[in-house]
Every structure is written in structure tokens, then in C-alpha cells.
């Protein structure tokens, strides 16, 4: 029995309020090239995940589970725009994505074909066939491998930020997780440590309202994940996660605070998991009306319409972008399918660090 505690059940993006956004730093609006880049990565992510979840998985070509971020692409893309890279070890930021942040991998430079090879368990996947889904990372791309135990990546991200501070650089550690992870002890320990040490971390929460089958109202008694920020003495902000402009601005503010040495921020982006927990889950426990409601708030059509209104793109340009993406992915799938499975001899390689 869930006792009444004065809440009003599921909430839409409309009534999300900005909580305690402490500074009014205006983040420069993204320029045209940045807008087109965001649209490209949102669409590329959507298509790549569609192929993995709806085609390759059903064809039996995917080795492990499939966890997609359909409907949440604006969060990964809007946030990853602020991850600084291209300058080496004392310049590049670091990022710990969650299992629903495919776009972060792509934007950090992991090509789609290597992600496909990963899902198919091939020797050229990021884990060389040792894992069949999102438990991958690559420090050359400044990606900390996703840890399956939700919440465990938070202290790791705080630790990365501690090294930045010890080295005296202005690098930032970006850390992604869902609202379910915020109930975990590791999450609390990591956020508290980052707050006490004033570490340069941007905590990005995708509140997609379901942790597997647990609704957010059974996960926390507060209305917003960002309400938790006050308990740590750090700024918290809650934003519409299906509005890529809003995501871009909120993460930009938090990254600037972190870079200035003003410590971590907790950002909540309200969105919806437009699929089951994973490809095997039909999400029968989610009311159909909720899917329909959030389908209408799909971040990609919303963003496209905004760009059409600005006349940055027209119908022909969108179609051109889409066919370019499909061609890229056709090629990537073909490449991945031709990749060898790992040699059985390699079972134990890379399992332990060999010094």
C-alpha cells in the first residue's frame, strides 16, 4: 500500500518548474551549425537504435539486452554539446553516460559501426565481444564505461572530477543517470562527496518516469529530482527534457559553473521512456494514454519544427539528412555483420589489467 503523501500522480513537462537556478548566466544560443549538428545526432541516434531494437534484435543478431533512449535524445544531445574535446588530457572533459545515452557515444566520436559490432558481440566492438550492449567505454573518447549497477557511476564521476581539481585544470566531469538511480546509496555518497569537495561535475538526470516498472511516485516523495539538490547545498534545476534548446541552456550553465570552480549542479530533465525497460519488455504496466501523450511531445519533431520555422532547414534538406543517415547506417550494419566473432583464445584478455 502506498500511503497518500500529497502528490498528484504523473506529471507532464508543462508543470515542471525551474528550481533554484542560482545564476543567470546567459549561455550563448547555439549557432546554425550547432543546431544542425544537434538535429543530425538526434536523428542518427533514433535511427541507429531503431535498427538495433526493432530489426537486428528481432533477427536474433544481437547478443545481449537492448536498452534504448527513444524519446530522450534531446537530453543526451543537448548535454553532450558542452563536453569539451579535441585538446588532450589536460583539456578534454570526461563523461559517464547511462544506458540510454547512445548519442553521447556517437558525439564523443565512436562510429556507429563499432557500436553495432559491440551489440553483435564482434571482435571489433568496444569490448571486443565481451559484452553485448551498452556496458562500453573508451578513454580515448573520454568515455567512462557504463557500470551496470545503476548509481555506481556517480562516485566514479566524482573521482574523475577530483583528479581535475588536483591537477588544477578547468575540465568538467559529466555524469548521466535516471531518476531510479537517485534512490541508490552510491548516488547519495557520490553527490555528497562532490558537493563537499566542490568538484566540477554536472549531474544529468533523465527523469523518464519509470525505473523498469517502478513509477517515479514510488521512487521518491519529492516532486522533482532537483529538489534533492538542496539537501547537498548545490544548485538544482528541473527542465523539460524534450526541449533540446532548454537542455542545451541548462547544461551550459552548469558546465560553466563547474569550470569556474563553483562545484557540482544537479540537473533534472523530465522526459518519458517511449519503450520498455529493454527490448524484451512490452511495458504493459505503462498506461497507453501516457505513451500517446508523450508521443505528441517527441523531441525530434519539436526540434525540426523549430528549425523549419527559423528557415534553417526545409523539407528537402530534412529528407536529404535522413537519407544520408540511412545510407551511413546501411553501410555500418553491413560492415558490422562482416566482422569476426572474437577468437576463443581471447576470452581472458583485457579481463584484468596486465600492468
Amino acid at each position: 500500500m502506498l500511503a497518500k503523501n500529497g502528490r498528484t500522480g504523473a506529471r507532464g513537462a508543462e508543470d515542471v518548474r525551474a528550481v533554484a537556478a542560482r545564476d543567470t548566466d546567459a549561455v550563448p544560443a547555439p549557432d546554425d551549425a550547432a543546431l544542425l549538428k544537434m538535429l543530425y545526432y538526434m536523428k542518427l541516434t533514433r535511427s541507429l537504435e531503431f535498427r538495433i531494437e526493432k530489426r537486428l534484435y528481432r533477427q536474433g543478431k544481437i547478443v545481449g539486452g537492448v536498452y534504448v533512449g527513444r524519446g530522450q535524445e534531446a537530453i543526451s544531445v543537448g548535454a553532450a554539446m558542452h563536453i569539451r574535446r579535441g585538446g588532450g588530457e589536460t583539456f578534454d572533459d570526461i563523461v559517464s553516460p547511462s544506458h540510454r545515452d547512445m548519442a553521447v557515444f556517437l558525439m564523443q566520436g565512436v562510429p556507429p559501426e563499432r557500436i553495432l559490432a559491440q551489440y553483435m558481440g564482434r571482435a571489433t566492438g568496444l569490448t571486443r565481444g565481451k559484452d553485448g550492449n551498452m556496458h562500453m567505454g573508451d578513454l580515448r573518447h573520454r568515455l567512462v564505461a557504463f557500470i551496470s549497477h545503476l548509481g555506481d557511476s556517480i562516485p566514479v564521476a566524482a573521482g574523475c572530477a577530483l583528479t581535475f581539481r588536483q591537477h588544477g585544470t578547468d575540465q568538467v566531469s559529466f555524469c548521466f543517470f535516471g531518476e531510479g538511480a537517485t534512490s541508490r546509496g552510491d548516488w547519495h555518497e557520490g553527490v555528497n562527496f562532490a558537493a563537499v569537495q566542490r568538484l566540477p561535475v554536472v549531474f544529468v538526470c533523465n527523469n523518464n518516469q519509470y525505473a523498469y516498472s517502478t513509477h517515479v511516485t514510488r521512487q521518491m516523495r519529492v516532486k522533482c529530482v532537483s529538489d534533492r539538490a538542496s539537501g547537498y547545498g548545490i544548485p538544482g534545476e528541473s527542465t523539460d527534457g524534450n526541449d533540446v534548446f532548454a537542455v542545451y541552456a541548462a547544461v551550459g550553465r552548469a558546465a560553466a559553473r563547474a569550470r569556474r570552480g563553483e562545484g557540482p549542479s544537479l540537473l533534472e530533465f523530465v522526459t518519458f521512456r517511449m519503450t520498455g525497460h529493454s527490448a524484451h519488455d512490452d511495458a504493459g504496466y505503462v498506461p497507453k494514454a501516457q505513451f500517446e501523450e508523450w508521443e505528441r511531445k517527441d523531441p525530434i519533431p519539436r526540434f525540426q519544427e523549430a528549425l523549419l520555422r527559423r528557415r534553417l532547414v526545409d523539407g528537402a534538406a530534412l529528407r536529404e539528412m535522413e537519407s544520408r543517415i540511412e545510407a551511413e547506417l546501411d553501410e555500418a550494419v553491413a560492415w558490422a555483420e562482416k566482422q569476426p566473432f572474437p577468437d576463443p583464445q581471447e576470452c581472458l584478455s583485457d579481463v584484468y589489467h596486465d600492468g
Partner: protein
Amino acid sequence: MSAVHKGQRRAPAKRRPAAGAQPPPLEPLRNPGLTREQLLVMHRRLRQNRMLEEKLSALYRQGKIVGGLYSSLGQEAISVGSAYALAPGDLLAPMIRNIGSLLVRGVPPLSLFLQFLARRDAPTGGKDGTLHFDDLGRSIIGPISVLGTLIPVMTGAALAARNRGEDRVALTYIGEGGTSTGDFHEGLNLAAVLNLPLVLVVENNGYAYSTPAHRQFAVASLAARGPAYGVASESVDGTDVLAVYGATRRAAERGRSGGGPTLLECRAFRRRGHAEHDDMWYVPKEIVAAWEKRDPIDRFETFLVDEGHATRKDLRSVEAALADELEEAAQAALASPYPAPEETLKDVYAGNE
């Protein structure tokens, strides 16, 4: 990598000044409606708590105490005020600095001496030398040494009571250091979501072993954590036994009437080391001196005398009577046997009688 691409180097972050473990502003004690008899019971428990620990400290120095000894000097009002505010059936889980809570619940000093001296007739039969025991007949759930871990246990106890239709509040304690543990978070969050009658008393005593509070959390008061869980919270002067009593009473009533958990911060100071072996050289002497002037028992005795509930002479005779009782209990415990070696494995696993 060319130099222009190098990230900016930043001056190291300035260390913030210590949050200052200074006592909160001094407010006069106010009677929340207790009778003279009740006030005198609380006084007796406070004094008993302190004198019992003084006696244990003496035994420790004589090499007679087997385990560690964790003093609650200066924090007695938290244990006594909070435990006294509960109803007899409420579930109480003390931590290692809550010997006063056990005394309020009626645990006899003899049991406590036996326990610290690891004798056969002690609550754990000589298997543990500190407060790690429970007494379900008195609705006492035993402390878990790993700090924070008792909180989800008490959340579970509150849930069990509610599922059985019992009207029981669950109260436990944690230090400010324990609030940084994951178990604190998971236990309080679940109690909040399930709207359970949990009273979580945070004894902010300034230091978690040698870690000062300002290196433990970045909020001015731990009551700020309440809204982060969607629960009621309050911060009181932990050297004011009546304030602790009143706040616990409100929290328990809130839980009983379906208002969910309460996070109650009580501010006091650990005036001795983490344990008896620790000389706490790391604590600035002026902080200890400031808190010595805020002694909870002195404050309460002054209140009792000023309000005409007792004379100084009455209070000294209480002390004298307690001294005799404690001496007698200590001697009885010292004369009692150690457990037989054959009993080593008894009670270690359930059913292994």
C-alpha cells in the same frame, strides 16, 4: 597537442572556513507541559547516564572493559529527551552513544556493566563488549556497528508494524557522519516514499571520528536534508533536553497520524574522543571549551532549581543515591563469572542453542 588547446589552469579552490562547530544561540529551557515527576525522572536518567559512563571509563582505565567505550558526554539530553518522548510500544534502536535511551527504557545498569565487562549473564552472554544487543521485550532493536545500516532496518521495522496494524513509531539515531552513507539515503528515502512513521534523530556532534562536520556535508544544517526527501525536518539544540523531548514528541505524533517520517537534527558536541582510546588532539581546544559551557545536565538542573521543581540539595541527594546504586551494580558485575568456553558458538546462528 598544441599549447593553445590546453585547458586553462585554475588556482586551487580556496578552502572554505570551518562551518564553526560553535554552539547554537542560547535559548532558555521551556517546559512543554511535563509534570514535576516527569521532569525529575528525566533528570535522574540524565545524571544516571553520565555517572554510569564515568564509572565505565574508570573500569576501562583499570583494564577491566573488554571492548571499546564510546562516551556520550555532552549528548545525554539527546538520548534521554528523545527516548522519553516515545510511547512504551514504540520501536527504539539506539546507537553506541545512546546508553541514556536504554536507561529510559528500563535496561538496568547491572546489565550494562555485565555487557561491558563481557560476563556470562550479560545481554550478549559475553560475546560483545559494547551496546550491540537488543531487548525485544522492551521494544529495543540492537545497534549495527556499520554506521547508517540501522536506518533501513528501522524503516523495515516500521513497515512491519504498519502491515500488522500495530500503532508503533520507529526511532533511531545516526551521527552527522553517518548521514553521508548510502544506507542513510536508501533507508530514509524508502520511509518517505512509503510514508512510514520513522523518527530519524541526527546527532550532529561536530566530528565523525576525526572528520569535522564541514568536511562531511555542504549544508548549514542537516535539517536541510528533509525537503530533499519530502519529509518534515527540524533542527534543535541538543543540549536542551526539553527541546529534544518536544521535537521528538511532535515527530512521533506526526508519524502516528500518517504524516510520515521526520528528520530531526540535534546539535551538540562530542566532548570526548571517538572512543576512550582517542585523545582527540585534532579537535581545537576552544571549541570543546565553548561546549563545556553548554552542558546539558547543568542547564537542566539550573532550570529545575529556577522553576522551583527541586533544590540543589535534592539534586545532590539524587546523585548520592545513584552513586551507591551504580557502585553496587558494578561490584556485582565484577563478581560475576565469564562465559564458559563451550558457549562460544551458542547463539551465533539461530537455532543453535
